[in-house]
């Protein structure tokens, strides 16, 4: 009966309306039951023990208390379960779909220019002619109107920064290597690039590590093509790092010619 309601007033009138004897004893103990466990529990055994005429008035109190704890425990249990499920869901959602930015920052050695130099990464104008970049290889900034073809192209000679930066803007990961990198190491890089759109590979004169990876606003330099961070960088940043979304074009009229001098006004030049 009304266990969890300490509101004795509501309970009392209903009992009174029965007009039975128990009415007198019950409201008092009923109110107690709601307010205090221990005091409500103690009268029980003694009441049952007496077994006299007055046992009726006391017995109902005992029943109401017995019933009260079952549902309460059930609700608490279900409530705890519900909170646990919601909590787990929130945690899983947070972990599973951690934003790529967070995962990128978690790659050991990655340089995040979105934090370091937000202006550089915002997006940039097209410029003709040679452009000086603060990073080698560059990671963002103004660039030539034509992008370097980044359809999994493997370039065997250096390409122009001005075109390559435009490819980065379109979501490409550009892998560069020092020209003295061992052939088998180059092959391992080529295998990651060939046929994979939004990827390109080229040798790069004068970079300070054997291998460097560029995405728009991100850079990672490593010593060895077996470094697992290379794949981590590609998975996390390819397309994701683009400020133009996944449908930016890496194909025609992208330039496929090599050479470090940018080409202006030459639509779809060929080698």
């Amino acid at each position, binding site marked *: *009966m*009304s*266990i*969890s*309601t300490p509101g004795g007033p509501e309970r009392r009138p*209903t*009992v009174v*309306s*029965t007009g*039975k004897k*128990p009415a007198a004893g019950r409201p008092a103990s009923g109110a107690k039951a709601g307010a205090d466990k221990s005091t409500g529990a103690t009268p029980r055994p003694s009441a*049952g023990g007496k*077994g006299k005429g007055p*046992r*009726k008035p006391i*017995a*109902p109190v*005992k*029943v*109401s208390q017995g*019933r009260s704890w079952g549902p*309460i425990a059930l*609700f608490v249990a*279900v*409530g705890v*379960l*519900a909170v646990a*499920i*919601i909590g787990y*869901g929130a945690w899983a*959602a947070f972990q*599973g*779909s951690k934003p*790529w930015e967070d995962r990128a920052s978690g790659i050991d050695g990655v340089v995040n220019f979105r934090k370091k130099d937000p202006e550089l990464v915002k997006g940039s104008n097209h410029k003709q002619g040679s452009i000086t970049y603060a990073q080698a290889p560059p990671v963002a900034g103004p660039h030539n109107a034509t992008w370097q073809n980044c*359809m999994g*192209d*493997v370039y065997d000679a250096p390409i122009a920064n001005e075109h390559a930066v435009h490819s980065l803007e379109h979501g490409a990961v550009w892998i560069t290597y020092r020209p003295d990198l061992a052939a088998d190491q180059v092959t391992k890089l080529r*295998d990651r690039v*060939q*046929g*994979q*759109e*939004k990827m390109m590979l080229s040798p790069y004169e004068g970079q300070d590590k054997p291998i460097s990876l560029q995405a728009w606003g991100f850079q990672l330099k490593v010593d060895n093509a077996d470094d697992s961070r290379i*794949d981590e960088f590609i*998975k*996390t940043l*390819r*397309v*994701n790092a683009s400020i133009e*979304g*996944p*449908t930016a*074009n*890496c*194909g*025609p*009229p992208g330039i*496929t010619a090599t050479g470090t001098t940018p080409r202006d006004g030459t639509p*779809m030049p*060929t080698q």
Partner: protein
Amino acid sequence: MTAPTTTGPDLGEVTVTDEGRPSAARRFGPLAVVAAVVVGLLLGYAGGLLTPKLTRPGDTSAEAGFVRDMTTHHTQAVEMGLLAFKGGSDPEVVSMGGDIAAGQQGEIGVMQTWLRSWGLDPTGSQPRMAWMPDGESMIRDGLMPGMATPEEMAKLRTAQGREKDLLFLDLMIDHHNGGIHMIDGILDVSDEAEVVRVAQTMKNVQQKDLENLVAARDRLKG
């Protein structure tokens, strides 16, 4: 002895005092009922939150594999189509090139949006074609079924006039045949309604394209 006596008066009392009020509230008290309703709503809310997350395609699912691989496949068709649109000489080749480039680029957008809504990266961690039974055995030189080699693409880029037209038609016919094979692969294994619907649409378009590509090639070859 206690049990019968307790239930006796208890039941009697409930019936007497019930007076048409809800027995649940009577029995457990309004607060308990409210708590039960709140807990029920929370459980329903949690279920509603979790169900889409638990049932959407995961990082290694066939759907995610198909979407990533078909994006790569489509991207090359866009490249071919743009080359034909820009440098083709036959009017039908030019218009089909533009049509295929624009159409498949649109489908890439649809597929990439799925990946985003599934909380997945555009780049997978599985080998190419791993989502399709025996898929990995269909790869030649890292290329999926029907895809042109870098040499063929270089040739398409530099070819001129009628040679370019015919090369485009040959390459695109192979490309569509390979594409349809992959689409059949996802239609066989997926029950993701939207994926199946769009894949079926892709197949319809490419089958229709194929008829026109073959007819154009026959016409150009005379």
